[in-house]
């Protein structure tokens, strides 16, 4: 008798606490007696109704979508349920400052001389506009990326250990599942495109594939960050590929750049700029392709869910959910395809730069 009763009371109390405190949290706390509690509940209900009316009027699907695909200083799973993340700022006068982003939870979104500005994406601006700050905060994207990095390291070091443990034996379980993917990347993506010296680039390209894949998949989870749909991430990846290509590129590649073979001298005036633009176009296309694909997927899914709130109808929801389910499957496919394409194009890019016989593709 005792335990079920206690369970019931605890549950009721927890539920009541959640119900009362969440809407009331914006107001002043500190109700001591019964009357005040009732008053607070009334006020909270008014507030909720008010908010609902307001949101009915003001539901802006564009803003909602931008808010979801943009980076943020806290990890919001649903309305009001958010993990505050550390804010790291560097400024010349104050040095490095670290504090929690929950400090911005006040009326003016202001703390310690900094504003949290909600625009399309969040930025932290100093109140004193003369100061220049650098924001190195662990944002939602950084946290998600670190999570995926930890997942990657855990998965693949354990698989690496499995290979060391059963030397000369058939792969088992998860090891064999991953082996198929690793072999696919090695034999069908890297080996034919990079050429005979592929082994030097294999670790980078494998990491690239799995990093993009894990971040793509994680990004599909509800409440997760849109890491690979962020241009800073794809830019960094593309630039790393660009650097690897140009560190390892051979003479043929550079010669081809300044004097493409078989081109008459007057045409060189046009061809050299075209070749040079081509050099930068390749990483640029890598960057934009991944960013645009992932962001577009998120925008489509969010637009579909936004439709439910625009129509405000019970009957449209199942239809849209079905459609969103279908699109989610497509997005899972896209997650794999984009990771594959990024790796494939990086391999081709590296392969064309280290090719021995000057048959480098012309970058068109």
């Amino acid at each position, binding site marked *: 008798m005792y335990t079920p009763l206690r369970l019931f009371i605890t549950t009721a109390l927890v539920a009541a606490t959640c119900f009362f405190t969440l809407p009331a949290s914006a107001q002043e706390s500190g109700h001591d007696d019964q009357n005040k509690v009732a008053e607070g509940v009334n006020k909270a209900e008014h507030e909720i109704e008010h908010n609902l009316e307001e949101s009915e009027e003001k539901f802006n699907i564009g803003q909602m979508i931008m808010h979801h695909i943009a980076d943020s200083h806290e990890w919001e799973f649903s309305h009001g349920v958010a993990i505050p993340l550390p804010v790291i700022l560097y400024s010349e006068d104050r040095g490095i400052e670290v504090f929690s982003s929950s400090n911005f939870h006040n009326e003016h979104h202001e703390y310690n001389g900094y504003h949290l500005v909600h625009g399309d*994406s969040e930025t932290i601006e100093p109140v004193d506009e003369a100061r220049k700050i650098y924001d190195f905060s662990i944002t939602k*994207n*950084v946290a998600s990326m670190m999570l995926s990095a930890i997942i990657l390291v855990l998965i693949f070091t354990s698989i690496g250990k499995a290979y060391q443990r059963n030397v000369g034996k058939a792969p088992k379980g998860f090891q064999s599942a991953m*082996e198929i993917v690793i072999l696919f990347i*090695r034999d069908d993506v890297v080996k034919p495109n990079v050429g005979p010296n592929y082994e030097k680039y294999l670790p980078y390209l494998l990491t690239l594939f799995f990093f993009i894949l894990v971040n793509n998949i994680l990004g599909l989870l509800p409440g997760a960050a849109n890491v690979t749909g*962020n241009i800073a991430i794809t830019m960094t990846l593309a630039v790393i590929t660009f650097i690897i290509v140009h560190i390892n590129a051979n003479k043929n590649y550079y010669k081809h750049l300044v004097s493409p073979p078989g081109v008459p001298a007057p045409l060189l005036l046009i061809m050299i700029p075209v070749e040079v633009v081509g050099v930068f176009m390749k990483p640029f296309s890598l960057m934009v392709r991944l960013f645009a694909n992932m962001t577009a997927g998120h925008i489509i899914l969010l637009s579909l869910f936004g439709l439910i709130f625009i129509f405000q109808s019970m009957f449209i929801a199942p239809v849209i959910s079905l459609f969103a389910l279908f699109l989610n499957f497509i997005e899972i496919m896209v997650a794999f395809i984009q990771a594959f394409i990024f790796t494939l194009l990086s391999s081709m890019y590296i392969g064309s730069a280290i090719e021995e016989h000057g048959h480098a593709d012309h970058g068109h």
Partner: protein
Amino acid sequence: MSLLTPNPGLIFWMLVVFLLVVFILAKFAWKPIIKGLKDRENEIQGALDLAERTKAEMVKLKSDNEKLVAEANAVRDRILRDAKDASDRMIAESKDRAAVEGQKMIDSARDTIRNEQHAAIAKMRKEVATLSLEIAEQVLHRELKDKESQEKLISDLASSARMN
């Protein structure tokens, strides 16, 4: 447009995290994985090669064996044939020789018999002549007293002559 403006802080963290991941995975994951895969492939290739080689060797051994058996059979056949030939020849030879010997013995026996016959006949002739002479001598020696005693004497002599 903020969507298209890369955030420097994010780039910084991305660089740090991604390069760290590349480094850690390259050292602790890809190295053993790629090595393991390659070792396994080499092992499988080696096993396949060995099987192929063993198969070829088996085929060679088999054909060698067959050749050996065929050779042995041929040798056996030849030996048997030789032995048979030799025995046949020996039998034929001995038969011939035996026939010749037999003939020779028969001939010599015939000669001997003929010689003995001749000798016996000659001897008999001589004996008969001698006997006749003796009889004649005895007859002549005794004077014929009577006719009866003469006849008696002749029959006696004749019977004693028949004894020979």
